[in-house]
């Protein structure tokens, strides 16, 4: 099902949870709503489900206005963060619930219900556990029961609130893969909420980054990671060095480092921030190539990578280099090295303070 969210506003007790959120979700797409707590992502999901209603704005399902349709009539499959399984019912009865409460012409016979529930339990790999109670299941199994229960009503859209939040790291990764495969198989439109960027980038077709009740950026995982639209997205996704800089006539000055910032050619004198990913920071020995002088403060070896903490003027940076490069450089704490950002991105301070933070015109890419 296609979903169109138009200019949705929502406040809770005077606190704006969502301000002017618009988003289109395509048929069969799996979308991640990513953001820190309090960013409005769960509110948006609950509005999609019909568990909350927007103060203003519209939610359209396949073009039809669903804004005031109650959750009962929306045919959405909602998977709660803590599963919200019915504790007094067996796994079978949990999954069958949506079918047994159905009244009128859509009602299925006992046999049909049994068949469908068994089929769903097979699909979520819980075929043998139909007679168990939720308390007798592991977290991952409960999550899959919740999913089967939501799918039982053949929803037009599947909504998941922090689906893997309460699971340990290993199970989480496994279930993530599995959800992705399930989605590819069922081709159902899906929206899930997460605060884990890795989860969002790994599972979703499209990631919607939210902050303070607004959408910062929506795009494919690659777009989001490689060309963040705002400083917030930059900082929220992946490790990044943010460095104070001055921009003057198309040139950015970070400490002793001078970099071209041609998009800001018209800017006379402005304070800005430069963002450099740790793996985009190149290190070389003094006297070998260009760059600014920095001091090695700390070295930690993380499997195949080496993280080097550097001091540039008064600013601390992190660089990630390969084990091999580390060996070539023979880095030691206190040593002076040259650093050079392979890629950097600049944001003017004035332009991202306040609401223009979201203005997509402001940020400009710079490959150096």
């Amino acid at each position, binding site marked *: 099902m296609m979903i169109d969210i138009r200019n949705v506003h929502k406040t809770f007790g005077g606190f704006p949870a969502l301000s002017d959120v618009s988003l289109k979700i395509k048929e069969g797409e799996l979308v991640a709503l990513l953001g820190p707590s309090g960013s409005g992502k769960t509110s948006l999901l609950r509005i999609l489900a*019909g*568990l909350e209603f927007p103060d203003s704005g519209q939610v359209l399902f396949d073009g039809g206005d669903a804004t005031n349709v*109650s*959750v009962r009539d929306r045919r959405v499959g909602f998977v709660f963060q803590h599963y919200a399984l*019915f504790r007094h019912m067996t796994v079978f009865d949990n999954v069958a619930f949506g079918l047994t409460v159905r009244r009128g012409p859509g009602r299925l016979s006992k046999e049909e219900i049994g068949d469908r529930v068994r089929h769903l339990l097979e699909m979520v790999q819980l075929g043998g556990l139909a007679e168990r*109670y939720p*308390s007798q299941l592991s977290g991952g199994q409960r999550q899959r029961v919740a999913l089967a*229960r939501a799918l*039982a009503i053949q929803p037009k859209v599947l909504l998941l609130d922090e689906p893997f939040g309460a699971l340990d790291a290993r199970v989480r990764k496994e279930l993530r893969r599995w959800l992705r495969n399930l989605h590819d198989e069922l081709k159902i439109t899906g929206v899930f909420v997460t605060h884990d960027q890795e989860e969002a980038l790994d599972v979703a077709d499209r990631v919607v980054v939210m902050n303070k009740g607004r959408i910062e950026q929506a795009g494919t995982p690659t777009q989001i990671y490689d060309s963040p639209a705002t400083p917030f997205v930059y900082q929220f996704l992946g490790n990044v060095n943010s460095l104070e800089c001055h921009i003057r006539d198309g040139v950015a000055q970070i400490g002793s480092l001078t970099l071209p910032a041609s998009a800001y050619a018209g800017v006379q004198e402005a304070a800005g921030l430069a963002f450099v990913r740790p793996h985009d920071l190149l290190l070389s020995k003094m006297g070998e190539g260009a760059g600014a002088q920095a001091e090695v403060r700390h070295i930690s070896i993380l499997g195949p990578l080496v993280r080097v903490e550097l001091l540039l003027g008064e600013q601390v940076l992190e660089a990630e280099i390969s084990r091999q490069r580390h060996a070539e450089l023979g880095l030691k704490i206190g040593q002076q090295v040259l650093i050079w950002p392979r890629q950097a991105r600049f944001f003017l301070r004035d332009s991202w303070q306040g609401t223009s933070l979201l203005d997509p015109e402001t940020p400009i890419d710079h490959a150096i």
Partner: protein
Amino acid sequence: MSTRLNPLLESRAVRIGLTLVAAIILLLFLFAPLVVVFGEALSKGLGAYLDALTEPDTLSSIWLTLVVAAICVPVNLVFGICAAWCVAKFDFRGKSLLTTIIDLPFSVSPVIAGLIYVLVFGLQGWLGPWLRDHGIHIIFALPGIVLATLFITFPFVARELIPLMEEQGTEAEEAAVSLGANGWQVFRRVTLPNVKWGLLYGVLLCNARAMGEFGAVSVVSGHIRGRTTTMPLQVEILYNEYNMVAAFAVASLLAMLALVTLAVKTFFEWRYAKELAA
């Protein structure tokens, strides 16, 4: 998965000492009186015990007690569920006022509760003359006893359910609605089963109190033998008449009610331990 201290961390002497103190207190203050009640009741033999229980005034007091409980428990069951549902699942103005009012009977002396009804419905009370003119008897009659008992047992079911429902939150209900259940289906199939053990416990407590209430009922009943005496009042009357066997015979019935209440509760806890743990 609670983190409890390992009991073996305490020294042996402390462990045995504490256990002994607890056992002695239980024996002295709970078990011994119970034995005395039955001992006194049966002191003149089983025949005298049964004679005392089948005496017409006593029989009528048993009957009256059962009638009062049969009215009060269902009324408070319905009220308790409604009140707990409102307080636990919804936010509204005056919510704290409602919880305070629910707790009122706990904080007011039962005698005062009885007096309130006398002031309102008694002959000298606000509604007294009007009620007399219309031939309606409330004070010194069954309605007064029922009203006083209702007031006293008001909080039992609600108080048992509110923390339980609050702890469970509304997620299960939301899940049920999102799966297409209507309000009644949500209540009957999700909310109620989730609190049924708390509800049962509340009903048992409510019933025990409805049958055992003395103070409030004493004020409104008028102690008319064979007509407005409930079992606790009958015990007092018989005791004041130095009819020890009869007094303790009736008392033994009340004690048995307590034991049965505990037994039923324990049975259900044992029988449905699996579901309870869920």
